[in-house]
């Protein structure tokens, strides 16, 4: 069933997006509201290089990653020296600017018409043309990405990122150059979003500005929040749930405009339920993951009445 495989490709892409966003929001504690822009930059750069310049797939992807990472640094430099939530506002504005550029720089991006006919990935003469083949490619890339992110997070470097989230002043007092670390975190997060964008572009083979909107960022943030800030496993679960959750409505005979609206409703209901039952996300950061998953389901069962006694609270 190609439909399921299609969903799994999308899930892989969203896993990369939510895991990369979690580096910025969950691990370093910077509110990034422009992740869709980095996603879009990767998609556009990679698509244009492959289609217009005729660069190989792998080179296009690499430039997509670099372009997005540079954009992350660029947006970070002016606002990280300021305190407070400037980054949230700056990234939000940045997202809109990028979308405006996609829409209006028609000589390059073709504006609202979008870019059709983006070549399918080709590696060592092998073309990933069918959904099945692409699924294999995207799962491999997703696994490598998650592995890399895991490696980065669980290292002395990642420990410094978490210290910045916890208390910037204490981190400074221990000699950490927090601006450098924040810029790196932004670059890494944006770079992986660029990779996801490139995957997306070469998979759908068509991109236009409507894919890279603020709503898309909200979806990514929801995945991170649902899974739990600062939990990589959580980001994966959050991405899978929110990718698959609204799909069943497709099979109900409803007019398309109702379907689109119901998706939004489903996301909102999912998040409201989460805030009610588990404000820290399914897996807030805790080394004791397994117990947490168990506790989540036990607690859920208790809340909806399948269980009579309240499960013991984890410390």
């Amino acid at each position, binding site marked *: 069933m190609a439909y399921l495989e299609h969903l799994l490709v999308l899930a892989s892409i969203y896993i990369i997006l939510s895991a990369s966003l979690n580096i910025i929001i969950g691990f370093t504690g910077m509110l990034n509201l422009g992740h869709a822009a980095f996603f879009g930059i990767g998609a556009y750069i990679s698509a244009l290089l492959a289609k217009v310049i005729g660069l190989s797939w792998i080179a296009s992807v690499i430039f997509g990653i670099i372009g997005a990472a540079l954009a992350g640094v660029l947006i970070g430099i002016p606002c990280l020296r300021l305190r407070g939530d400037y980054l949230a506002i700056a990234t939000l504005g940045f997202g809109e600017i990028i979308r405006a550029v996609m829409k209006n720089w028609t000589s390059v991006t073709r504006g609202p018409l979008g870019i059709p006919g983006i070549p399918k990935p080709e590696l060592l003469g092998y073309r990933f043309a069918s959904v099945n083949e692409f699924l294999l490619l995207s799962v491999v890339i997703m696994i490598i990405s998650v592995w*890399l992110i895991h*490696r*980065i997070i669980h*290292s*002395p*470097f*990642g*420990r*410094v990122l*978490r*210290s910045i989230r*916890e*208390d910037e*002043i*204490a*981190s*400074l*007092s*221990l*000699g*950490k*150059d*927090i601006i450098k670390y924040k810029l*790196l975190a932004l670059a*890494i997060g944006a770079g992986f979003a660029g990779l996801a964008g490139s995957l997306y572009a070469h998979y759908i083979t068509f991109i236009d500005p409507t894919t890279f909107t603020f709503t898309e960022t909200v979806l990514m943030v929801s995945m991170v929040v649902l899974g739990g800030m600062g939990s990589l496993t959580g980001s994966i679960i959050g991405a899978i749930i929110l990718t698959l959750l609204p799909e069943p409505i497709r099979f109900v005979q409803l007019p398309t405009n109702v379907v689109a609206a119901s998706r939004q409703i489903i996301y909102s209901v999912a998040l409201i339920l989460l805030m009610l039952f588990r404000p820290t996300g399914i897996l807030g*950061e805790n080394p004791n993951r397994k117990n947490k998953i168990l506790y989540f389901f036990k607690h859920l069962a208790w809340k909806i009445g399948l269980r009579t006694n309240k499960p013991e609270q984890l*410390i």
Partner: protein
Amino acid sequence: MKPLLEIEHLNKSFGGIKAVNSCSFIVPHGKIVGLIGPNGAGKTTVFNLVTGFLSSDSGKIKLDGVSLVGMSPDRIARMGISRTFQMIRLFPHMTVIDNMMLAIKNEREGLFDAVFRIPPLSTEEKHNEERCMEMLEYVGLETKKHEKAKNLSYGQQKLLEIARALIADPEILLLDEPAAGVNLTMLKKIGDLLKKLRSQGKTILIIEHNMEFIMNLCDTVVVLDYGQEIAVGAPHQVRKNKKVLDAYLGNIDVKIVT
């Protein structure tokens, strides 16, 4: 020999308030210097100026002859100044051992080392962890290794913050009221720890309201009032100083008279 820390005519105003007013004093190598004075005298502000968290309006701050003015707090920390905060600042959701590991000198906190790990990180991490554990044992927190910092008692958090500042192996340690809210046993322990550090040649600048603690511990005491040093000297001299008595008698702390 040049003093380790030199402060000369330091000024800092907040709006109309002169929090630090042409303040000058020195901290010699290997000594414990007490910085005392009534509430609001400007002691914490001096710390914030020295550590770069606030920028001074004018004046000189030198560490081993090198001016610290205009340097960022992280750079100053890397120059060898460790501090604790009057309001404890730990990494609350991180474990005790992670709090310590963040303070220890580590050349391998870069992104490159996180990704490539050549040579592997584990040997260094293990070695660092052992050193952190020794320090934790010394302050009696070894059993709390995997506890989140926020779950420690107030006194334990104070100890952890001191231990964290110490593991950085600084040239000079700046402690802002380490004894506040700590019980007598802990207090004695902190005092002993600081004396031991001095015997190892460490230099300490300490803010504290507990006079007995200060008088027993310090080589020199600097008394601050309205942002200015009104007396500097050995503890027994300072406690007889007329200006100091006046400054404190306006306050409730009469203990100093006895």
